[in-house]
């Protein structure tokens, strides 16, 4: 390529979205993107009002750009993202389903987005009705008996659930010492156990990837507060022996905690409350369609059986005899607050909108989710190694054992999948499957999308056989390729800094 042409393309590409810098790099003194209405009261003298804590200079390095530059900047950035609105994320246990757009509208309505939790309760009845209806719907879906909507995400829900368990055990005279975690568990589980003041004890899965009942019997003692179980497991397989699991735990006074991340396999088909579950959390940003937004916000409601109700975080929503709602703070046995104010209300609104759209037909979503996962499993069996043969529910876990023989691993395959227009599946999790490919299509994928995915995975498997290098050096079509994570961890650069000013020079 001629040097001249190269330079021209470089300059040209600055005018597209390929080389958008940082907002700070676009800044220039005194550019403005926002005007306020004029001040209609006398100005105050900040020096006089605040004294020595007055910030006399502007915030150093703060952006100074115009409105169009802000809009262009973030619009360009957005084009570098993959999203559900563009295509499939087959990420296991993430449940990347369609985020209905009407949910965005209702969450923004004046009278919904504008409300302040400290305002008089008689002016918040609309909010309370929303919360109450969502509570009732989630209780119906889970088959549990009481619920809190306060936790901000699944991990916070897990913590809340364990704190409820602890409060119960404390009341019975023995707070207990440990929580059992299967080796297939999501990382938030053991991390949460420690914050809840318990010790983690791992319990190995059996050859089928399920809880080993014999081991469970050995390990459940009166020192065990609970078992944290994900059902279906992170392998996408239903824990068939859940009745025995519950019985063993309950016989020693321990509780069965269910991580509800995989509710997308169960909603409308069964209820955890029937299976001996004492306490569980839900991920509204998974099963209930609230948007991931690049990493949150989510919500992690916790549903419990009646005996745990007295310990729920305050405040608890209650319905008065006159049909109005109020918040109850007088709960002596409550574990307290897990966050300020009531919860991620905006997320709760979206989840309720989703539930209302489906109504009793929500079972159809579950059926389609399980159908898609099994369709993919059937069509990729033999192409990729299937370490666990039990029936899959809403997700399927393959391994890279076949491809490893050619020196290609799950990470490489995942990166190559990007070139085919898909977001990678979950790699290297669950830990019990070395080289895992964890695939959850969700119900939002059409047959056509599933077929494209299957075709892509088959093509990649063929590439592994015939030209593995192209897979090992993938992706080839993205704007950036194989970012250096080692350098980022060795010498972290975690913020922009203005370029050093040279003394005496101008600018």
């Amino acid at each position, binding site marked *: 390529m001629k040097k001249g042409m190269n330079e021209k393309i470089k300059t040209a590409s600055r005018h597209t979205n390929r080389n958008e810098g940082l907002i700070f790099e676009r800044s220039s003194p005194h550019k403005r993107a926002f005007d306020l209405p004029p001040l209609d009261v006398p100005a105050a003298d900040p020096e006089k009002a605040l004294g020595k804590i007055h910030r006399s200079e502007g915030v150093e390095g703060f952006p100074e750009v115009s409105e169009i530059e802000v809009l262009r900047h973030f619009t360009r950035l957005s084009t570098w993202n993959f999203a559900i609105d563009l295509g499939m994320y087959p*990420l296991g246990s993430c449940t990347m389903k369609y985020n209905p757009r009407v949910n965005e509208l209702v969450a923004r309505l004046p009278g919904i987005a504008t409300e302040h*939790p400290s305002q008089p309760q008689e002016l918040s009845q609309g909010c309370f009705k929303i919360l109450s209806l969502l509570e009732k719907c989630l209780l119906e879906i889970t088959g549990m008996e009481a619920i809190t909507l306060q936790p901000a995400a699944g991990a916070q829900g897990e913590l809340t659930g364990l704190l409820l368990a602890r409060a119960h055990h404390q009341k019975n005279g023995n707070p207990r010492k440990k929580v059992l975690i299967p080796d297939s568990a999501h990382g938030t589980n053991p991390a949460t156990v420690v914050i809840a003041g318990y010790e983690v004890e791992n319990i190995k899965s059996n050859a089928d990837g399920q809880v080993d009942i014999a081991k469970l019997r050995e390990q459940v003692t009166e020192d065990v507060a609970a078992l944290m179980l994900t059902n279906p497991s992170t392998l996408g397989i239903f824990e068939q022996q859940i009745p025995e699991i519950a019985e063993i735990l309950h016989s020693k006074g321990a509780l069965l905690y269910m991580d509800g991340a995989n509710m997308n396999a169960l909603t409308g088909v069964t209820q955890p409350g029937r299976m001996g579950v004492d306490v569980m959390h839900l991920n509204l940003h998974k099963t209930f369609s609230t948007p991931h937004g690049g990493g949150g916000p989510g919500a992690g409601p916790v549903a419990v059986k009646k005996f745990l109700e007295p310990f729920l975080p305050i405040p608890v929503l209650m319905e008065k005899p006159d049909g109005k709602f109020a918040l109850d703070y007088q709960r002596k046995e409550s574990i307290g607050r897990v966050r300020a104010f009531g919860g991620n209300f905006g997320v709760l609104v979206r989840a309720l909108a989703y539930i209302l759209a489906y109504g009793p037909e929500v079972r159809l979503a579950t059926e389609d989710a399980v159908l898609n996962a099994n369709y993919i499993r059937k069509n990729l069996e033999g192409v990729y190694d299937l370490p666990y043969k039990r029936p899959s529910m809403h997700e399927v876990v393959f391994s890279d054992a076949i491809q490893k023989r050619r020196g290609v691993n799950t990470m490489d395959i995942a990166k190559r999948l990007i070139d085919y227009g898909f977001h990678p599946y979950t790699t290297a999790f669950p830990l019990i499957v070395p080289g895992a490919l964890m695939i959850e299509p969700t119900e939002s994928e059409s047959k056509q999308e599933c077929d494209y995915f299957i075709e892509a995975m088959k093509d990649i498997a063929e590439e592994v056989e015939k030209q593995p290098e192209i897979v090992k050096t993938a992706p080839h079509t993205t704007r950036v390729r194989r*970012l250096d994570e080692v350098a*980022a961890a060795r010498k972290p650069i975690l913020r922009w800094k203005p370029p050093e000013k040279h003394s005496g020079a101008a600018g």
Partner: protein
Amino acid sequence: MRYLPKSPAERQEMLASIGVKSIDELFSSIPEAYRLKEPLKLPGPFSEAEVVQYFEERANENSRGYTSFLGAGIYSHLRSVVTDTILQRGEFLTSYTPYQAEMAQGTLQAIFEFQTLMCQLTGQEVANASMYDGSTATTEAVLMAERLTGRQRVLVARSVHPEYRGVLRTYAKNSGLHVEELPFSATGTLDTNALKSALKDDVCAVVVQSPNFFGAMEELQPVAGMARRAGALLVVAITEALSLGLVKPPEEADIVAMEGQSFGLAPSYGGPFVGVIASREKYVRQMPGRLAGQTTDLEGRRGFVLTLATREQHIRREKATSNICTNQALCALAATVHLSLLGKEGIREMAEQNLAKAQFTLTELEKIPGVKRTFCAPFFNEFTVELPRSVKIVNTELLKSKIIGPYVLGSAYPEITKHALVCVTETTSRKDIERFVGALKDALLVPV
């Protein structure tokens, strides 16, 4: 159902491909006894119009048409429509956590910009990609201090938001932390004599809020000095982040725990908001939450990745610095866009308007016989006044004029009944302020 992209014929094709006759066979692994025979009893199904209608009806049962003087940790500020335009782009709204960096450079660069803005505002060296909110950020900051010092006692000012203290207590109960509350003095700020007596070499953190719950600015330098001499870390919580547009950043703090709701997030009945933890570089390996770092790709292009992930739950598991996974990324994006729009001059101007409106309101209120300013410490957009009668009763009267009156301090601070926390922002017009003052004056004259 409009969210399900399959025709009945396609379902049949897929079932045939799998080799089963009906969808029910795919659920055979669920024991029969557990399988529901009836559909769930849920309202719906609703068409899109019915969904909207349901929420519009609820919206009409709240506080529409009322003017509010509430702050207390959640603030009404102007928001540009541009922020929502960006937030509603599907590439931001519906994208996943940026673990696969090549497919999420938009999110990652935005996080990097957010981290930068938070450092610039707070005067700290490093900030993370967000926590759930200010209350959990404050708690996590304390846990971070515990890890860094190995000590177990926490001293927290009572002038810190009551709900923040509540969250800290809940988390502390189970982690062996011992939390003690320190009183406030007549100025409305932390009683430094009490701090002096309480500080020993077993304290991991001293927690103050500035502006504090009463709206008063704390004097951080002496507090920082005392904490440092005792080997404790100073955690400064901030609920009204806009104050940083006009107030010096808390550089004395070892860790700043901030609520970013003032930057582009609607009050939304309490959430979702955005918590921030900002601190010194030397503490970065003990910071919870995600961090976006700058790096280069194969061809030398600048790019961004999640980094220092070995602190986090998905790798460290039980030894993680926190259990946080999903955080508040979209809310952080809202703050980033909002602050980019406000810019250097805009944030200052907005803060100045807040200061002016609050000063004006206080001046007018003090003209009413019997109404006195409670605390003499400087304030930003919130201040406390003492009324000659119960604030609750006054507020009930104010409601008749469609005014939501100030926060009743007595409910959280039984020792200061008849005191009200008034908040005025740039969104409150002079007309509404004068209406409020007039209505309050009248309310005080109503026979009890």
